[in-house]
């Protein structure tokens, strides 16, 4: 047996023995464990799986052992991922630090920073949040205004962030801050800083959405002291790191998708319940619109499959990849609009026992679907990217494609 085959056999045996049955397969929302200083386990199995993976150093299996990683080679890591997938093991914890900041630290951090910041990550002891967007810096991220001013041995941070997922529950934040106002290009003068969310002057407030309570926060900084060794990468060189970090965001988000149960509402089934007979021209037209929407979803799913096949055949998939987020989020929104049309006031309930659980869930999901065409790059920005990068159309005179 070759070394890699031995590794596969051992890994498989270990996972079979150590991953609790109840943690194989997709998780319903709220059933995932978030690593951090305050880890909450819904049951004993979750705790066991968390601790076993931690003690095997497999929270970060491909990171160097020097920082608490598993020290696996890329081949071994690939085998581990395959075996995890084969058994449908859920991730033992979700941690933005590991998925997004970690790789950037490994590439750009100092030795001291790697020791200090990576090691607790590999133990699942710190929960991280991302402080990028600001009230005036959404699509135009480089427009951030939060400042970090040099005060000798530390920086003083003032300003605010918005849309910070779990800002109120996180221990540390990696944030983009302005460290130089003088440069003509706003992409210059930005730095990447990590800061303690428990520090004095930091306040996180959850935002209520049109759909109700949410995990997204506004975060305010009032003269927050951050020691200088928390600057990642070069001073004023944060934009490059931010772009790198956002590349990792995409793969992190797809991991989320893989492990959470999609709350799938089947359009045609529900339509059949609320609109059993379509007699009038308008009802028939509504059915036809729904049918078109559902078939479009089918075409989208086929496109996901085709992208995978093209990637495996080593063909360029950039043109397909660029449409995925746009199509999926717009289709979801359209689907809920149709459900709302078909269900009438049954889809307009807010709470209470007047409405079934499914009806209330559909109302919430419909309202939430509006966040999907904004978050992670709005639909318009996606269209700009397609126009510019895929279709090679010229730059707009002002604003527009980037």
């Amino acid at each position: 047996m070759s070394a890699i085959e031995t590794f596969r056999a051992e890994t498989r045996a270990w996972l079979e023995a150590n991953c609790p049955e109840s943690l194989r397969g997709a998780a319903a929302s709220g059933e995932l464990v978030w690593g951090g200083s305050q880890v909450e386990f819904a049951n004993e199995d979750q705790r066991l799986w968390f601790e076993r993976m931690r003690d095997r150093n497999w929270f970060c299996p491909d990171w160097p052992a020097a920082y608490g990683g598993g020290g696996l080679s890329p081949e071994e890591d690939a085998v581990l991922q395959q075996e995890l997938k084969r058994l449908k093991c859920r991730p033992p914890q979700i941690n933005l630090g590991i998925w997004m900041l970690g790789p950037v630290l490994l590439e750009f951090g100092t030795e001291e920073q790697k020791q200090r910041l990576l090691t607790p990550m590999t133990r699942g002891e710190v929960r991280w949040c991302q402080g990028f967007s600001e009230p005036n810096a959404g699509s135009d991220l480089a427009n951030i205004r939060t400042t970090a001013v040099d005060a000798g041995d530390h920086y003083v941070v003032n300003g605010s962030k918005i849309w910070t997922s779990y800002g109120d529950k996180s221990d540390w934040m990696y944030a983009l801050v302005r460290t130089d106002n003088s440069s003509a290009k706003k992409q210059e003068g930005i730095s990447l800083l990590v800061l303690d969310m428990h520090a004095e002057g930091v306040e996180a407030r959850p935002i209520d959405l049109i759909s109700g309570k949410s995990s997204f926060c506004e975060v305010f900084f009032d003269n927050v002291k951050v020691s200088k060794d928390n600057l990642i990468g070069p001073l004023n060189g944060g934009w490059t790191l931010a772009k790198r970090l956002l590349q990792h965001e995409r793969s992190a988000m797809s991991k989320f998708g893989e492990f959470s149960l999609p709350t799938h509402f089947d359009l045609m089934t529900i339509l059949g319940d609320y609109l059993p007979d379509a007699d009038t021209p308008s009802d028939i037209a509504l059915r036809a619109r729904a049918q078109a929407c559902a078939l479009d979803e089918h075409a989208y799913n086929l496109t996901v499959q085709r992208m995978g096949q093209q990637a495996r055949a080593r063909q360029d998939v950039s043109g397909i990849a660029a449409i995925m987020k746009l199509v999926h989020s717009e289709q979801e929104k359209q689907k809920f609009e149709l459900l709302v049309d078909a269900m009438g006031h049954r889809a307009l309930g807010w709470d209470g026992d007047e409405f079934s659980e499914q009806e209330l869930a559909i109302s919430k999901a419909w309202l939430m679907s509006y966040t999907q065409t904004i978050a992670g790059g709005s639909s318009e920005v996606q269209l700009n990217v397609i126009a510019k990068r895929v279709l090679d159309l010229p730059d707009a005179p002002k604003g527009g494609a980037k």
Partner: protein
Amino acid sequence: MNLIYNEEQRMLLDTAQEFFAERSPVSALRALRDRNDELGFEPALWQEMTELGWTAIPFPESLGGLEFGYTGMGTVFESAGRHLSASPLLSSVVLCGSILEQGGSATQQESWLAELVAGNKRLALAVDEGSRHNPHNLALSAVRTETGFQLDGEKVMVVDGLQADGWIVAARTGDAADAISLFIVPADTPGVEQKRQNLIDSRNTARLTFTHVQVAPEQLIAELDKGAPILESALDRGRACIAAELQGACEELFKTTLEYLRTRVQFDVPIGSFQALQHRAAWMHVDIELARSSLMAALDAIDSGDAQAAQLVSLAKWKVGQMADKVSSEAVQMHGGIGVTDELDVGLYFKRIRVLQALLGDADYHLNRAAPLLEEA
């Protein structure tokens, strides 16, 4: 489900692209139109396509075919679509050929199918009767006589119906909804009147009127009253090939349009820099990708004998058709005034695309027919 061309298919695609680009560019269609050519294609080109073996692609080896499947056929249709190259590949080989393959007797296969594949003869399929495609509502009747059958009725939108060596005619032979039978009617049979339906795409389309047409019993394909499933399956193969031709035509037209957006200057900038046009172009790209996936699924479903092949073909004809309507109208619009002139090829693409969209069921027809796909979801 296999949604990409394999290496052999890609090679065929390359060959076909080069062939049509060189031997049948858009100027060839323009020439046919300008001389009001009723045949609607160049016999020499058809001969060459036959020699390249393309007429043999979908048939089993036992019938002299190459067994290269409809995915293979898709590569040829998509390439023909790119250059608006005209040939009777759809009418004679895909539609009539697959009826004979599936329902023809050994004698019929020998005297007709082999001749179609060899390019010596040409058949056209006569199905539609009304203004829109509706193969489940046929009125042309075939009534038993002492010597065979008598056909009475009318067919329209018969693709490549003029100057054919014969037609395969779908006729009603009973009262039951699906009591349909298929007959081979040789062109010299008395009582058939041919009239050209000159459509916007300048191709060969015929109206056939059958008045007391006498057909011998051996011209019946398969069993009496049992033609509907054979017809439906042939139509599906045809629909998938039409979708491939549309996809090719639209991708090419989109390319031309993008090039125009990059180069046409108004207000001192290329018009392609206007976001109002950029976003519409980006949506076209989205639709082209979704349509492509649906097309590939349909071709593969036919080749693999998928139980849902019919629905997947309809998904493709719907999605590609919908995309084609959008891409063709945006192409004209984005070319501004010159887009509505005959000088530009844009208009020729627009017209061919609209005919293909309507042919064998438009997007509305196939939206309905694809719907069972959604039941098992």
